[in-house]
């Protein structure tokens, strides 16, 4: 085998594996990518039911209700609110740090009742840290004071 053939085989192999990866990625991107929206974005743009979304904001005080199988609450960016239902897989993994009045990011499917059927929740990790999405959502509504929570 000459050096040229060797190089060709190498590049051919690389292209084949790379092509496989690109194919897999294009396939995977269709079903598993969530668009981030703030509660106001959702109210204004009203996304189609079935869309995969990620919502960030604060948990509305007094809005959370827990049953044996699910947790429901509302997320606000100070202007609008969106209801979130957290059941099943999501309910099994409610973070310890989930609390009313605190930042939360919920990801799931937006359904025809204008609620987010969440499959995962992300709550803050220490009291000085707030998910960036939440900060941005609050900033957009002018409800964020610099240096308020995140240092």
């Amino acid at each position: 085998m000459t050096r040229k053939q060797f190089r060709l085989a190498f590049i051919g192999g690389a292209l084949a594996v790379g092509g496989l990866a690109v194919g897999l990625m294009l396939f995977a991107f269709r079903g598993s990518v969530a668009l981030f929206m703030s509660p106001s974005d959702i109210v204004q743009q009203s996304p189609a039911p079935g869309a995969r979304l990620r919502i960030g904001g604060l948990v509305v005080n007094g809005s959370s209700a827990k049953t044996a199988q699910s947790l429901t609450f509302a997320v606000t960016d100070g202007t609008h609110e969106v209801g979130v239902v957290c059941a099943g897989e999501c309910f099994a993994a409610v973070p310890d740090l989930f609390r009313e009045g605190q930042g939360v990011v919920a990801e799931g499917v937006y359904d025809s009742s204008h609620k987010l059927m969440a499959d995962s929740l992300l709550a803050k990790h220490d009291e000085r840290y707030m998910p960036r999405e939440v900060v941005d959502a609050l900033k957009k509504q002018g409800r964020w004071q610099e240096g308020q929570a995140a240092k």
Partner: protein
Amino acid sequence: MIVEAGHFALALALALSLLQAGVPFWGARTGDPTLMRVADGTALGQFFFVGLAFAALAYAHLTSDFSVVNVEENSHSAMPAIYKFSGVWGNHEGSMLLWSTILAAFGALVATTGGALPLRLRADALAVQGLIGAAFLAFILATSDPFARLSPAPFEGRDLNPILQDPGLAIHPPMLYIGYVGFSIVFSFAAAALIEGRIDAAWARFVRPYTLVAWSFLTLGIAMGSYWAYYTLGWGGFWFWDPVENASLMPWLAGTAFLHSVAVMEKRDALKVWTIFLAVLAFSFSLLGTFLVRSGVLTSVHAFANDPKRGLVILGILGAFVAGSLALFAWRAPLLRQGGLFAPISREGALVVNNLFLTTSCATVLIGTLYPLALEQFTGQKISVGAPFFNATCGVLLLATGFLTPFGYSLAWKRGDLLGVAQRLAFALACGVATLVAILAATRGGPVLAPIAAAIAVFVMLGAVSEVAARGFRGRAKVGVALHRLAGLPLSFWGGTLAHFGVGMLMLGLAATGFGSEVIATMKQGQTLTVGPYEITYDGSRTQPGPNYQEVVADLRVTQDGARVTTLSPARRNFGARKMSTTQAGIATLWLGQLYLSINDLAPDGTLPVRLYWKPLVTLIWLGAVAMALGGALSLTDRRLRIGAPVRARSSREAAPA
């Protein structure tokens, strides 16, 4: 006083690292051995002073000196000593200091163990290592001073984040950092080889031990982090495709590829340019990981409150080293003498395929992690890429890599015989297919990939065993002869075999997650639930105080067909200082599976909300990783790999390949 001494030591270390970067490099260019030898002394000195700074910070934490901002923000006088100590790196400043300490330690390791290395190579490598050290020490001193004082000093600290008050913090970050930062040595040697424009099989022999150390620790560190998340986050997940986890997986994938390609270089003097490229890549991913974790650009469970300016500085360091090394690579790589050629069907060819798959899966992780960031920068649209994406891309590619592993491992160097290998692996392959058929027949629904992964896992494990058998019983040897032969096989062969067996164990553990069962319920006292093959009865709960928390412990009895198996005692801990609660899951390891039980706060009516999981074979995930790391350690002890040791300890024909 000790704290100020620590600060001063850090500044001295920076000065020494600058010397280490400059003097030996100049010596290597002018051919002055005295200047080149400066590298050793400065590397040792840098390690001494960084270590001193680290010790000073640890002292401040252990003695709860709340006049130090870092201690005040992350410690509490009532904390157990082990968490006071591990709290040293449970924050941004301290973890960067740990990073630099380990970096300097690796430099010192080369200075002390590298006596057999060519002087010029050692000088250049240590100079590059010194440059990395200088960049990070300057970063710490300029933006993340761990020794800043607070006046007046408060009486009590704000406590360490309760999630971090766990033995996991004592183990996971140091191991992970030894892995991450260990690749800096490989990077430094690659840069030194490029500067000299010369690289050969001896180079591969020099870097292999450091690579094995870094790789083994990285493997353990990732596994440890995953087990920590598993038992602490309270819902039995062990891998979340969180950006920060991806940041540790990427160097691991690139490092694993490097470990394999460096073997080709050592044995066959081939794939030189590619190996150098992987060395640069592995450490670049380590730096990228540091940037992703420390800059706060990503929303992640690992993010600390952070100052965006620091992110910019780390991005600068990352950019400078990656761009610098790639430019060096582009400029100097053509000078490297071309390596040897080999037939496509051979051990070398198989390792090239391994490399292609590992780097491609690494690329998919990179794209999945950075694409959302790039999209937001350029279009303002925010998306998140979740686990399904990574499972369908990286997961599938790694499954394919696993499937190819036994074939590659059984092929001979130079020119292999695929048919012979297929015959050798026929038994393992048949067992794999039988597993697939059995699972498909026994279960309905479930994840698509799980049965396939289980089948490949069985194939990989038995493939490793077949290879051992084939080595021993070659030519229909008798048992006595075979055992004698096996005893004569080099340790690096056993290390490789154990590591590959570990890959199979890991895959089997992952596959088995598709076949567990879970129950989410609220239990009354005396009530019994069934999960998997076990019944669980709630006996009651009690409140007890801990050192710096109050906890509610629930007692649940586990029985199987009426016979008592064990008791689970999950707990909820309430930390007063931060007004936070954490969950301590109750876990019982039964055979290789685990019964996992986590609870929430008691309901007002006294009922207990529980999440119960039966996870068959789940421990294999971590045991597999441990087997891989042990395999790395076993290879490391191989006499033939030791620099300065006689090149060939045994000359029997059986002992030659590894």
